[in-house]
Protein backbone atom coordinates (compact mmCIF):
# COMPACT_ATOMS: atom_id res chain seq x y z
CA UNK A 1 0.00 0.00 0.00
CA UNK A 2 1.92 3.01 -1.33
CA UNK A 3 1.45 6.36 0.41
CA UNK A 4 0.47 7.86 -2.94
CA UNK A 5 -2.10 5.17 -3.78
CA UNK A 6 -5.86 5.54 -3.63
CA UNK A 7 -6.04 2.54 -1.30
CA UNK A 8 -3.76 4.33 1.21
CA UNK A 9 -5.88 7.47 1.03
CA UNK A 10 -9.01 5.44 1.80
CA UNK A 11 -7.19 3.53 4.55
CA UNK A 12 -5.90 6.74 6.16
CA UNK A 13 -9.31 8.42 5.92
CA UNK A 14 -11.02 5.42 7.52
CA UNK A 15 -8.39 5.28 10.29
CA UNK A 16 -8.81 8.99 11.09
CA UNK A 17 -12.61 8.62 11.08
CA UNK A 18 -12.62 5.60 13.41
CA UNK A 19 -9.91 7.21 15.61
CA UNK A 20 -12.08 10.22 16.37
CA UNK A 21 -15.41 8.39 16.65
CA UNK A 22 -14.46 5.60 19.06
CA UNK A 23 -13.86 6.35 22.74
CA UNK A 24 -10.62 8.18 23.50
CA UNK A 25 -9.48 5.35 25.76
CA UNK A 26 -9.17 2.95 22.84
CA UNK A 27 -7.64 5.37 20.32
CA UNK A 28 -4.21 3.85 20.69
CA UNK A 29 -5.64 0.38 20.05
CA UNK A 30 -7.05 1.74 16.77
CA UNK A 31 -3.59 3.01 15.85
CA UNK A 32 -2.02 -0.34 16.72
CA UNK A 33 -4.63 -2.24 14.70
CA UNK A 34 -4.26 0.15 11.75
CA UNK A 35 -0.47 -0.18 11.88
CA UNK A 36 -0.58 -3.96 11.70
CA UNK A 37 -3.25 -3.89 8.94
CA UNK A 38 -1.05 -1.46 6.99
CA UNK A 39 1.99 -3.68 7.43
CA UNK A 40 -0.04 -6.79 6.54
CA UNK A 41 -1.01 -5.21 3.22
CA UNK A 42 2.63 -4.21 2.64
CA UNK A 43 3.51 -7.90 2.94
CA UNK A 44 2.00 -10.45 5.31
CA UNK A 45 5.36 -12.21 5.53
CA UNK A 46 6.92 -9.05 7.01
CA UNK A 47 4.81 -9.31 10.16
CA UNK A 48 6.97 -12.01 11.72
CA UNK A 49 10.05 -9.74 11.50
CA UNK A 50 8.45 -6.73 13.16
CA UNK A 51 7.02 -8.99 15.86
CA UNK A 52 10.49 -10.44 16.45
CA UNK A 53 11.99 -6.95 16.86
CA UNK A 54 9.15 -5.95 19.19
CA UNK A 55 9.57 -9.02 21.41
CA UNK A 56 13.38 -8.64 21.56
CA UNK A 57 13.03 -4.94 22.40
CA UNK A 58 10.34 -5.54 25.03
CA UNK A 59 12.16 -8.36 26.84
CA UNK A 60 15.56 -6.62 26.78
CA UNK A 61 14.14 -3.33 28.06
CA UNK A 62 12.14 -5.03 30.83
CA UNK A 63 15.19 -6.99 31.97
CA UNK A 64 17.28 -3.83 32.12
CA UNK A 65 14.52 -1.94 33.94
CA UNK A 66 14.17 -4.64 36.60
CA UNK A 67 17.94 -4.34 37.21
CA UNK A 68 17.69 -0.55 37.45
CA UNK A 69 14.79 -0.78 39.92
CA UNK A 70 16.62 -3.36 42.05
CA UNK A 71 19.76 -1.18 41.99
CA UNK A 72 17.89 1.96 43.05
CA UNK A 73 16.04 0.06 45.79
CA UNK A 74 19.28 -1.40 47.12
CA UNK A 75 21.06 1.97 47.17
CA UNK A 76 18.06 3.65 48.83
CA UNK A 77 17.85 0.93 51.49
CA UNK A 78 21.58 1.08 52.23
CA UNK A 79 22.21 4.79 51.79
CA UNK A 80 23.20 5.28 55.43
CA UNK A 81 25.49 2.29 55.69
CA UNK A 82 27.27 2.50 52.33
CA UNK A 83 30.36 4.62 51.77
CA UNK A 84 30.34 6.87 48.73
CA UNK A 85 33.07 4.77 47.11
CA UNK A 86 31.10 1.57 47.80
CA UNK A 87 27.99 3.06 46.27
CA UNK A 88 29.97 4.16 43.22
CA UNK A 89 31.52 0.69 42.82
CA UNK A 90 28.10 -0.98 43.22
CA UNK A 91 26.51 1.28 40.61
CA UNK A 92 29.43 0.65 38.21
CA UNK A 93 29.04 -3.13 38.65
CA UNK A 94 25.28 -2.89 38.01
CA UNK A 95 25.87 -0.77 34.94
CA UNK A 96 28.22 -3.43 33.61
CA UNK A 97 25.56 -6.11 34.09
CA UNK A 98 23.01 -3.90 32.35
CA UNK A 99 25.46 -3.44 29.51
CA UNK A 100 25.59 -7.22 29.11
CA UNK A 101 21.80 -7.36 28.71
CA UNK A 102 21.86 -4.41 26.32
CA UNK A 103 24.56 -6.06 24.20
CA UNK A 104 22.46 -9.21 23.78
CA UNK A 105 19.41 -7.12 22.81
CA UNK A 106 21.40 -5.07 20.28
CA UNK A 107 22.97 -8.20 18.86
CA UNK A 108 19.57 -9.82 18.36
CA UNK A 109 17.98 -6.65 16.98
CA UNK A 110 20.76 -5.51 14.67
CA UNK A 111 21.63 -9.15 13.93
CA UNK A 112 18.36 -9.70 12.08
CA UNK A 113 18.86 -6.49 10.09
CA UNK A 114 22.45 -7.46 9.30
CA UNK A 115 21.52 -10.96 8.11
CA UNK A 116 18.64 -9.81 5.92
CA UNK A 117 20.28 -6.73 4.50
CA UNK A 118 23.97 -7.55 4.23
CA UNK A 119 24.30 -11.33 3.67
CA UNK A 120 24.24 -11.04 -0.13
CA UNK A 121 26.73 -8.14 -0.07
CA UNK A 122 29.16 -9.99 2.21
CA UNK A 123 28.89 -13.24 0.26
CA UNK A 124 29.45 -11.39 -3.03
CA UNK A 125 32.60 -9.92 -1.49
CA UNK A 126 33.73 -13.38 -0.34
CA UNK A 127 33.07 -14.74 -3.84
CA UNK A 128 35.22 -12.00 -5.35
CA UNK A 129 38.05 -13.06 -3.05
CA UNK A 130 37.51 -16.75 -3.81
CA UNK A 131 37.48 -15.95 -7.53
CA UNK A 132 40.84 -14.23 -7.12
CA UNK A 133 42.28 -17.48 -5.75
CA UNK A 134 40.26 -19.65 -8.19
CA UNK A 135 38.58 -21.37 -5.24
CA UNK A 136 34.95 -21.79 -6.37
CA UNK A 137 31.93 -19.75 -5.32
CA UNK A 138 29.40 -19.64 -2.50
CA UNK A 139 25.77 -19.56 -3.47
CA UNK A 140 24.03 -16.30 -2.53
CA UNK A 141 20.57 -16.80 -1.01
CA UNK A 142 17.77 -14.41 -1.88
CA UNK A 143 16.55 -13.04 1.44
CA UNK A 144 13.44 -11.05 2.12
CA UNK A 145 14.03 -7.43 3.14
CA UNK A 146 10.99 -6.31 5.14
CA UNK A 147 9.68 -2.83 4.38
CA UNK A 148 11.12 -0.14 6.66
CA UNK A 149 13.20 -2.62 8.71
CA UNK A 150 16.13 -0.20 9.05
CA UNK A 151 13.82 2.49 10.43
CA UNK A 152 11.97 0.43 13.00
CA UNK A 153 15.12 -1.44 14.05
CA UNK A 154 17.01 1.82 14.64
CA UNK A 155 14.10 3.33 16.53
CA UNK A 156 13.77 0.24 18.74
CA UNK A 157 17.50 -0.09 19.41
CA UNK A 158 17.70 3.62 20.27
CA UNK A 159 14.99 3.00 22.86
CA UNK A 160 17.04 0.14 24.36
CA UNK A 161 20.07 2.42 24.74
CA UNK A 162 17.84 5.06 26.37
CA UNK A 163 16.60 2.49 28.91
CA UNK A 164 20.21 1.41 29.54
CA UNK A 165 21.19 5.05 30.13
CA UNK A 166 18.13 5.52 32.39
CA UNK A 167 16.92 8.33 30.11
CA UNK A 168 13.50 6.62 29.93
CA UNK A 169 11.69 3.89 31.87
CA UNK A 170 10.96 0.65 30.01
CA UNK A 171 7.38 0.33 28.78
CA UNK A 172 5.46 -2.26 30.80
CA UNK A 173 2.62 -2.77 28.35
CA UNK A 174 3.74 -4.97 25.44
CA UNK A 175 1.07 -3.60 23.11
CA UNK A 176 2.02 0.01 23.79
CA UNK A 177 5.60 -0.82 22.90
CA UNK A 178 4.34 -2.65 19.79
CA UNK A 179 2.65 0.60 18.73
CA UNK A 180 5.86 2.58 19.27
CA UNK A 181 7.73 0.14 17.01
CA UNK A 182 5.04 -0.15 14.33
CA UNK A 183 3.23 3.24 14.21
CA UNK A 184 2.22 3.12 10.56
CA UNK A 185 2.70 6.69 9.25
CA UNK A 186 6.42 6.58 10.10
CA UNK A 187 6.98 2.86 9.72
CA UNK A 188 8.46 2.80 6.24
CA UNK A 189 10.62 5.90 5.98
CA UNK A 190 10.86 7.54 9.38
CA UNK A 191 11.40 9.99 10.95
CA UNK A 192 13.32 7.89 13.48
CA UNK A 193 11.55 8.94 16.67
CA UNK A 194 12.72 8.77 20.28
CA UNK A 195 10.64 6.87 22.84
CA UNK A 196 10.69 9.81 25.24
CA UNK A 197 9.02 12.17 22.80
CA UNK A 198 6.67 9.80 20.94
CA UNK A 199 5.39 7.03 23.19
CA UNK A 200 3.22 9.12 25.51
CA UNK A 201 1.68 10.92 22.57
CA UNK A 202 0.74 7.65 20.89
CA UNK A 203 -1.18 6.39 23.89
CA UNK A 204 -2.61 9.73 25.08
CA UNK A 205 -6.27 10.62 24.55
CA UNK A 206 -6.70 13.04 21.68
CA UNK A 207 -9.71 15.28 21.16
CA UNK A 208 -10.41 16.63 17.69
CA UNK A 209 -8.51 19.89 17.11
CA UNK A 210 -9.75 21.57 13.93
CA UNK A 211 -6.71 23.81 13.50
CA UNK A 212 -4.23 20.99 13.88
CA UNK A 213 -6.35 18.73 11.65
CA UNK A 214 -6.50 21.31 8.86
CA UNK A 215 -2.77 22.09 9.10
CA UNK A 216 -2.05 18.35 8.92
CA UNK A 217 -4.32 17.91 5.92
CA UNK A 218 -2.54 20.75 4.09
CA UNK A 219 0.79 19.13 4.83
CA UNK A 220 -0.38 15.75 3.49
CA UNK A 221 -1.55 17.40 0.25
CA UNK A 222 1.75 19.28 0.02
CA UNK A 223 3.60 15.99 0.40
CA UNK A 224 1.57 14.47 -2.43
CA UNK A 225 2.45 17.46 -4.61
CA UNK A 226 6.16 17.15 -3.90
CA UNK A 227 6.17 13.41 -4.53
CA UNK A 228 3.85 13.10 -7.53
CA UNK A 229 4.52 16.34 -9.38
CA UNK A 230 8.19 17.02 -8.63
CA UNK A 231 9.89 13.76 -7.60
CA UNK A 232 8.12 11.38 -9.97
CA UNK A 233 8.49 13.77 -12.91
CA UNK A 234 12.23 14.17 -12.27
CA UNK A 235 12.49 10.39 -11.92
CA UNK A 236 11.66 9.88 -15.62
CA UNK A 237 14.81 11.77 -16.65
CA UNK A 238 16.97 10.34 -13.86
CA UNK A 239 16.14 6.78 -14.95
CA UNK A 240 17.08 7.53 -18.54
CA UNK A 241 20.27 9.41 -17.70
CA UNK A 242 21.51 6.58 -15.48
CA UNK A 243 20.51 3.84 -17.94
CA UNK A 244 22.48 5.26 -20.91
CA UNK A 245 25.72 6.37 -19.27
CA UNK A 246 27.85 5.78 -22.40
CA UNK A 247 25.86 8.46 -24.13
CA UNK A 248 25.09 10.84 -21.29
CA UNK A 249 28.45 12.16 -20.13
CA UNK A 250 29.87 15.64 -19.47
CA UNK A 251 27.13 18.21 -18.95
CA UNK A 252 24.54 15.44 -18.75
CA UNK A 253 26.15 14.29 -15.49
CA UNK A 254 25.58 17.80 -14.13
CA UNK A 255 21.97 17.58 -15.38
CA UNK A 256 21.60 14.28 -13.52
CA UNK A 257 22.96 15.83 -10.33
CA UNK A 258 20.40 18.64 -10.53
CA UNK A 259 17.50 16.39 -11.52
CA UNK A 260 18.27 13.78 -8.86
CA UNK A 261 18.48 16.53 -6.24
CA UNK A 262 14.95 17.58 -7.21
CA UNK A 263 13.80 13.94 -7.20
CA UNK A 264 15.20 12.94 -3.83
CA UNK A 265 14.13 16.19 -2.18
CA UNK A 266 10.56 15.85 -3.47
CA UNK A 267 10.47 12.15 -2.73
CA UNK A 268 11.89 12.12 0.78
CA UNK A 269 10.56 15.41 2.11
CA UNK A 270 7.22 14.71 0.40
CA UNK A 271 6.97 11.34 2.14
CA UNK A 272 7.90 12.91 5.47
CA UNK A 273 5.30 15.66 4.92
CA UNK A 274 2.63 12.96 4.45
CA UNK A 275 3.86 11.17 7.60
CA UNK A 276 4.02 14.27 9.80
CA UNK A 277 0.82 15.73 8.32
CA UNK A 278 -1.18 12.56 8.90
CA UNK A 279 0.16 12.36 12.45
CA UNK A 280 -0.81 15.99 13.03
CA UNK A 281 -4.35 15.12 11.91
CA UNK A 282 -4.31 12.44 14.63
CA UNK A 283 -3.05 14.94 17.21
CA UNK A 284 0.48 13.48 17.27
CA UNK A 285 3.55 15.65 16.71
CA UNK A 286 6.52 13.89 15.16
CA UNK A 287 10.08 15.18 15.04
CA UNK A 288 10.93 17.25 11.97
CA UNK A 289 13.34 15.60 9.55
CA UNK A 290 14.32 18.51 7.27
CA UNK A 291 15.07 22.19 7.73
CA UNK A 292 15.58 23.68 4.24
CA UNK A 293 18.77 21.65 3.69
CA UNK A 294 19.51 23.03 0.22
CA UNK A 295 20.15 26.48 1.67
CA UNK A 296 23.01 25.15 3.83
CA UNK A 297 26.33 26.95 3.53
CA UNK A 298 28.55 24.02 4.51
CA UNK A 299 28.49 20.22 4.53
CA UNK A 300 28.28 20.13 8.31
CA UNK A 301 25.30 22.46 8.22
CA UNK A 302 23.70 20.41 5.43
CA UNK A 303 23.88 17.29 7.59
CA UNK A 304 22.30 19.13 10.51
CA UNK A 305 19.36 19.97 8.25
CA UNK A 306 18.92 16.86 6.05
CA UNK A 307 17.43 13.64 7.47
CA UNK A 308 17.90 15.16 10.90
CA UNK A 309 16.52 12.26 12.95
CA UNK A 310 18.98 9.83 11.34
CA UNK A 311 21.84 12.28 11.90
CA UNK A 312 21.04 12.76 15.58
CA UNK A 313 20.56 8.99 15.98
CA UNK A 314 24.08 8.31 14.68
CA UNK A 315 25.50 11.22 16.70
CA UNK A 316 23.90 10.15 19.99
CA UNK A 317 24.22 6.38 19.71
CA UNK A 318 27.41 5.88 17.65
CA UNK A 319 29.55 9.00 17.40
CA UNK A 320 29.51 10.14 21.06
CA UNK A 321 29.74 6.69 22.70
CA UNK A 322 32.64 5.84 20.41
CA UNK A 323 34.54 9.10 20.68
CA UNK A 324 34.24 9.48 24.46
CA UNK A 325 34.83 5.78 25.20
CA UNK A 326 37.69 4.85 27.52
CA UNK A 327 39.67 3.24 24.74
CA UNK A 328 39.38 6.34 22.56
CA UNK A 329 40.40 8.63 25.42
CA UNK A 330 43.37 6.35 26.14
CA UNK A 331 44.29 6.49 22.46
CA UNK A 332 44.11 10.26 22.63
CA UNK A 333 46.44 10.37 25.66
CA UNK A 334 48.86 7.98 23.97
CA UNK A 335 48.91 9.87 20.71
CA UNK A 336 49.33 13.24 22.47
CA UNK A 337 52.39 11.83 24.14
CA UNK A 338 53.87 10.19 21.06
CA UNK A 339 52.53 12.11 18.09
CA UNK A 340 52.11 15.57 19.54
CA UNK A 341 49.34 17.69 21.00
CA UNK A 342 47.75 18.63 17.69
CA UNK A 343 47.25 15.10 16.32
CA UNK A 344 46.46 13.59 19.71
CA UNK A 345 43.57 15.97 20.20
CA UNK A 346 42.06 15.09 16.84
CA UNK A 347 42.43 11.31 16.81
CA UNK A 348 39.25 10.37 18.77
CA UNK A 349 37.18 12.80 16.72
CA UNK A 350 38.54 11.52 13.45
CA UNK A 351 38.22 7.82 14.29
CA UNK A 352 34.66 8.28 15.50
CA UNK A 353 33.73 10.43 12.49
CA UNK A 354 35.07 7.88 10.01
CA UNK A 355 33.33 4.98 11.80
CA UNK A 356 30.06 6.92 12.00
CA UNK A 357 30.06 7.82 8.33
CA UNK A 358 31.04 4.29 7.32
CA UNK A 359 28.01 2.99 9.24
CA UNK A 360 25.78 5.76 7.88
CA UNK A 361 26.73 4.68 4.36
CA UNK A 362 26.10 1.05 5.20
CA UNK A 363 22.71 1.94 6.72
CA UNK A 364 21.66 3.45 3.40
CA UNK A 365 22.35 0.25 1.53
CA UNK A 366 24.45 -2.88 1.15
CA UNK A 367 26.76 -1.73 -1.61
CA UNK A 368 30.15 -0.13 -2.13
CA UNK A 369 28.52 2.94 -3.64
CA UNK A 370 26.81 3.64 -0.30
CA UNK A 371 29.99 3.05 1.69
CA UNK A 372 32.01 5.33 -0.60
CA UNK A 373 29.18 7.88 -0.40
CA UNK A 374 29.45 7.88 3.40
CA UNK A 375 33.24 8.10 3.41
CA UNK A 376 33.28 10.94 0.87
CA UNK A 377 30.88 12.92 3.06
CA UNK A 378 33.23 12.22 5.96
CA UNK A 379 36.24 13.35 3.92
CA UNK A 380 34.58 16.65 3.00
CA UNK A 381 33.64 17.30 6.65
CA UNK A 382 37.13 16.50 7.98
CA UNK A 383 38.92 18.49 5.27
CA UNK A 384 36.75 21.53 5.92
CA UNK A 385 37.42 21.07 9.63
CA UNK A 386 41.16 21.14 8.95
CA UNK A 387 40.83 24.17 6.69
CA UNK A 388 38.90 26.09 9.34
CA UNK A 389 41.88 28.29 10.39
CA UNK A 390 42.35 29.21 6.73
CA UNK A 391 38.66 30.15 6.41
CA UNK A 392 38.89 32.24 9.58
CA UNK A 393 41.90 34.15 8.21
CA UNK A 394 40.07 34.67 4.93
CA UNK A 395 36.97 35.93 6.75
CA UNK A 396 39.09 38.36 8.79
CA UNK A 397 40.86 39.65 5.69
CA UNK A 398 37.72 40.16 3.59
CA UNK A 399 34.91 40.94 6.06
CA UNK A 400 32.78 42.89 3.58
CA UNK A 401 32.93 40.17 0.94
CA UNK A 402 32.05 37.46 3.47
CA UNK A 403 29.10 39.48 4.75
CA UNK A 404 27.68 40.00 1.24
CA UNK A 405 24.68 38.16 -0.19
CA UNK A 406 26.78 37.04 -3.14
CA UNK A 407 29.13 35.18 -0.81
CA UNK A 408 26.21 33.44 0.91
CA UNK A 409 24.82 32.48 -2.51
CA UNK A 410 28.21 31.08 -3.51
CA UNK A 411 28.45 29.04 -0.27
CA UNK A 412 24.96 27.62 -0.79
CA UNK A 413 25.58 26.78 -4.46
CA UNK A 414 28.92 25.17 -3.64
CA UNK A 415 27.42 23.02 -0.87
CA UNK A 416 24.39 22.07 -2.97
CA UNK A 417 26.54 20.97 -5.95
CA UNK A 418 29.06 19.13 -3.78
CA UNK A 419 26.35 17.19 -1.96
CA UNK A 420 24.62 16.51 -5.29
CA UNK A 421 27.86 15.23 -6.80
CA UNK A 422 28.43 12.77 -3.96
CA UNK A 423 24.75 11.80 -3.99
CA UNK A 424 25.02 10.75 -7.65
CA UNK A 425 26.78 7.59 -6.37
CA UNK A 426 23.28 6.59 -5.33
CA UNK A 427 22.07 6.86 -8.96
CA UNK A 428 24.89 5.17 -10.86
CA UNK A 429 25.33 2.50 -8.16
CA UNK A 430 28.82 1.65 -9.44
CA UNK A 431 31.81 3.42 -7.89
CA UNK A 432 34.37 3.24 -10.77
CA UNK A 433 31.68 4.19 -13.29
CA UNK A 434 30.61 7.16 -11.15
CA UNK A 435 34.20 8.41 -10.83
CA UNK A 436 34.65 8.06 -14.60
CA UNK A 437 31.45 10.02 -15.25
CA UNK A 438 32.52 12.74 -12.81
CA UNK A 439 35.76 12.97 -14.80
CA UNK A 440 33.85 13.52 -18.05
CA UNK A 441 32.42 16.75 -16.62
CA UNK A 442 35.95 18.14 -16.96
CA UNK A 443 36.97 16.39 -20.17
CA UNK A 444 33.82 16.27 -22.33
CA UNK A 445 32.58 19.68 -23.40
CA UNK A 446 29.16 18.87 -24.81
CA UNK A 447 27.26 21.94 -23.60
CA UNK A 448 26.54 22.84 -27.25
CA UNK A 449 24.88 19.51 -27.99
CA UNK A 450 22.92 19.73 -24.70
CA UNK A 451 21.43 23.13 -25.45
CA UNK A 452 21.11 22.25 -29.14
CA UNK A 453 18.41 19.68 -28.38
CA UNK A 454 20.13 17.22 -26.04
CA UNK A 455 18.06 18.49 -23.11
CA UNK A 456 15.06 16.81 -24.77
CA UNK A 457 16.81 13.50 -25.46
CA UNK A 458 16.43 11.67 -22.15
CA UNK A 459 12.72 11.01 -21.95
CA UNK A 460 11.95 14.61 -21.00
CA UNK A 461 9.96 16.87 -23.31
CA UNK A 462 9.35 20.60 -22.99
CA UNK A 463 6.18 19.89 -20.99
CA UNK A 464 8.06 17.76 -18.42
CA UNK A 465 10.70 20.47 -18.00
CA UNK A 466 7.98 23.09 -17.52
CA UNK A 467 6.14 20.98 -14.91
CA UNK A 468 9.35 20.22 -13.03
CA UNK A 469 10.71 23.76 -13.04
CA UNK A 470 7.35 25.23 -12.00
CA UNK A 471 7.07 22.59 -9.25
CA UNK A 472 10.55 23.42 -7.94
CA UNK A 473 9.74 27.16 -8.11
CA UNK A 474 6.52 26.61 -6.10
CA UNK A 475 8.48 24.68 -3.42
CA UNK A 476 11.09 27.47 -3.22
CA UNK A 477 8.39 30.15 -2.92
CA UNK A 478 6.51 28.17 -0.24
CA UNK A 479 9.77 27.68 1.68
CA UNK A 480 10.50 31.37 1.46
CA UNK A 481 7.00 32.36 2.58
CA UNK A 482 7.10 29.86 5.45
CA UNK A 483 10.32 31.05 7.05
CA UNK A 484 8.63 32.56 10.11
CA UNK A 485 5.59 30.30 10.20
CA UNK A 486 4.81 27.36 7.87
CA UNK A 487 2.33 28.26 5.11
CA UNK A 488 0.00 25.44 6.20
CA UNK A 489 -0.37 27.02 9.67
CA UNK A 490 -1.33 30.32 8.10
CA UNK A 491 -3.80 28.56 5.80
CA UNK A 492 -5.29 26.47 8.62
CA UNK A 493 -6.44 29.67 10.35
CA UNK A 494 -8.35 30.72 7.23
CA UNK A 495 -10.52 27.72 6.28
CA UNK A 496 -11.96 29.21 3.07
CA UNK A 497 -8.52 30.07 1.73
CA UNK A 498 -7.29 26.67 2.85
CA UNK A 499 -10.08 24.87 0.92
CA UNK A 500 -9.22 26.90 -2.18
CA UNK A 501 -5.52 26.06 -1.81
CA UNK A 502 -6.29 22.36 -1.27
CA UNK A 503 -8.55 22.25 -4.34
CA UNK A 504 -5.86 23.97 -6.40
CA UNK A 505 -3.25 21.52 -5.16
CA UNK A 506 -5.47 18.51 -5.97
CA UNK A 507 -6.14 19.85 -9.48
CA UNK A 508 -2.41 20.44 -10.04
CA UNK A 509 -1.63 16.90 -8.84
CA UNK A 510 -4.35 15.40 -11.08
CA UNK A 511 -3.23 17.41 -14.10
CA UNK A 512 0.53 17.32 -13.73
CA UNK A 513 1.31 14.46 -11.36
CA UNK A 514 2.93 11.29 -12.63
CA UNK A 515 0.35 8.54 -12.15
CA UNK A 516 -2.33 6.54 -13.95
CA UNK A 517 -2.37 3.73 -16.51
CA UNK A 518 1.05 3.04 -17.93
CA UNK A 519 2.76 4.87 -15.09
CA UNK A 520 4.99 2.59 -13.11
CA UNK A 521 4.16 3.80 -9.61
CA UNK A 522 7.52 4.42 -8.04
CA UNK A 523 8.16 3.51 -4.44
CA UNK A 524 9.56 6.11 -2.12
CA UNK A 525 13.33 5.90 -2.39
CA UNK A 526 13.79 5.43 1.35
CA UNK A 527 11.24 2.60 1.66
CA UNK A 528 13.82 -0.12 1.21
CA UNK A 529 16.42 1.38 3.54
Amino acid at each position, binding site marked *: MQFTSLSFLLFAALTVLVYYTVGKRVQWWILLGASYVFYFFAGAEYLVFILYTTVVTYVTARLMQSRVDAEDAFVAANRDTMEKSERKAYRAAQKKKRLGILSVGLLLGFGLLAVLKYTAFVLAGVNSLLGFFDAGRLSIPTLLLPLGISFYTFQSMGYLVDVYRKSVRAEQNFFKLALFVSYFPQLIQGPISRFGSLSEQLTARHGFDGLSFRAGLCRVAWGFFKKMVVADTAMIAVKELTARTDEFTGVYVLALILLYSAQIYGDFTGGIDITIGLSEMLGIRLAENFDRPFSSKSTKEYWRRWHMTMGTWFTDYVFY*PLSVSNSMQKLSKWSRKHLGEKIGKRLPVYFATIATWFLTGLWHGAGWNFIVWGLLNCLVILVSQELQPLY*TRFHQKFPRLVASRGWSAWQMTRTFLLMGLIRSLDCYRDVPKTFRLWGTMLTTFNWGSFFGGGWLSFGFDVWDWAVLLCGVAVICIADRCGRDEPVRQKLARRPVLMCAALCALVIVILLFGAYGIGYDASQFIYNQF
Partner: protein
Amino acid sequence: MEQLLAILKNLHPDVDFDAEEDLIGEGILDSLDIVTLITEINSEFDVAIPAEEVVPENFSSAAAIFALIERLDEE
Protein backbone atom coordinates in the same frame (compact mmCIF):
# COMPACT_ATOMS: atom_id res chain seq x y z
CA MET B 1 36.61 27.82 35.56
CA GLU B 2 39.53 29.80 34.11
CA GLN B 3 41.05 26.57 32.85
CA LEU B 4 37.77 25.61 31.12
CA LEU B 5 37.39 29.06 29.57
CA ALA B 6 40.91 28.76 28.18
CA ILE B 7 40.01 25.43 26.54
CA LEU B 8 36.82 26.90 25.08
CA LYS B 9 38.62 30.01 23.87
CA ASN B 10 41.11 27.79 22.12
CA LEU B 11 38.25 26.10 20.23
CA HIS B 12 36.51 29.34 19.21
CA PRO B 13 38.64 32.43 19.86
CA ASP B 14 35.89 34.76 18.56
CA VAL B 15 33.20 33.68 21.05
CA ASP B 16 32.55 35.34 24.41
CA PHE B 17 32.03 32.19 26.50
CA ASP B 18 31.35 34.20 29.68
CA ALA B 19 28.20 35.63 28.12
CA GLU B 20 26.93 32.86 25.80
CA GLU B 21 24.00 30.91 27.26
CA ASP B 22 22.99 28.72 24.31
CA LEU B 23 26.14 27.27 22.80
CA ILE B 24 24.29 24.32 21.25
CA GLY B 25 21.11 26.01 20.07
CA GLU B 26 23.06 28.77 18.38
CA GLY B 27 25.31 26.22 16.66
CA ILE B 28 28.52 27.53 18.29
CA LEU B 29 29.55 24.08 19.52
CA ASP B 30 28.97 21.19 17.11
CA SER B 31 29.54 17.49 17.70
CA LEU B 32 33.21 17.66 16.65
CA ASP B 33 33.81 20.56 19.06
CA ILE B 34 32.11 18.66 21.89
CA VAL B 35 34.29 15.59 21.47
CA THR B 36 37.42 17.76 21.30
CA LEU B 37 36.22 19.51 24.45
CA ILE B 38 35.56 16.21 26.24
CA THR B 39 39.04 14.99 25.32
CA GLU B 40 40.53 18.23 26.65
CA ILE B 41 38.53 18.03 29.88
CA ASN B 42 39.61 14.43 30.35
CA SER B 43 43.21 15.49 29.92
CA GLU B 44 43.14 18.74 31.97
CA PHE B 45 40.68 17.84 34.76
CA ASP B 46 41.08 14.04 34.74
CA VAL B 47 37.28 13.73 34.49
CA ALA B 48 35.69 11.27 32.06
CA ILE B 49 32.39 12.41 30.59
CA PRO B 50 30.28 9.39 29.56
CA ALA B 51 28.12 9.44 26.40
CA GLU B 52 24.86 9.65 28.36
CA GLU B 53 25.96 12.99 29.78
CA VAL B 54 26.42 14.44 26.30
CA VAL B 55 23.08 16.24 26.17
CA PRO B 56 22.47 19.89 25.16
CA GLU B 57 21.67 21.01 28.74
CA ASN B 58 25.15 20.00 29.92
CA PHE B 59 26.92 21.93 27.15
CA SER B 60 24.69 25.00 26.79
CA SER B 61 27.13 27.38 28.51
CA ALA B 62 30.56 27.49 30.15
CA ALA B 63 28.84 27.46 33.54
CA ALA B 64 26.81 24.33 32.63
CA ILE B 65 29.95 22.54 31.43
CA PHE B 66 31.77 23.49 34.61
CA ALA B 67 28.86 22.26 36.73
CA LEU B 68 28.99 18.94 34.85
CA ILE B 69 32.72 18.62 35.50
CA GLU B 70 32.22 19.33 39.21
CA ARG B 71 29.31 16.87 39.47
CA LEU B 72 31.22 14.06 37.73
CA ASP B 73 34.30 14.77 39.80
CA GLU B 74 32.19 14.62 42.95
CA GLU B 75 30.55 11.34 41.94
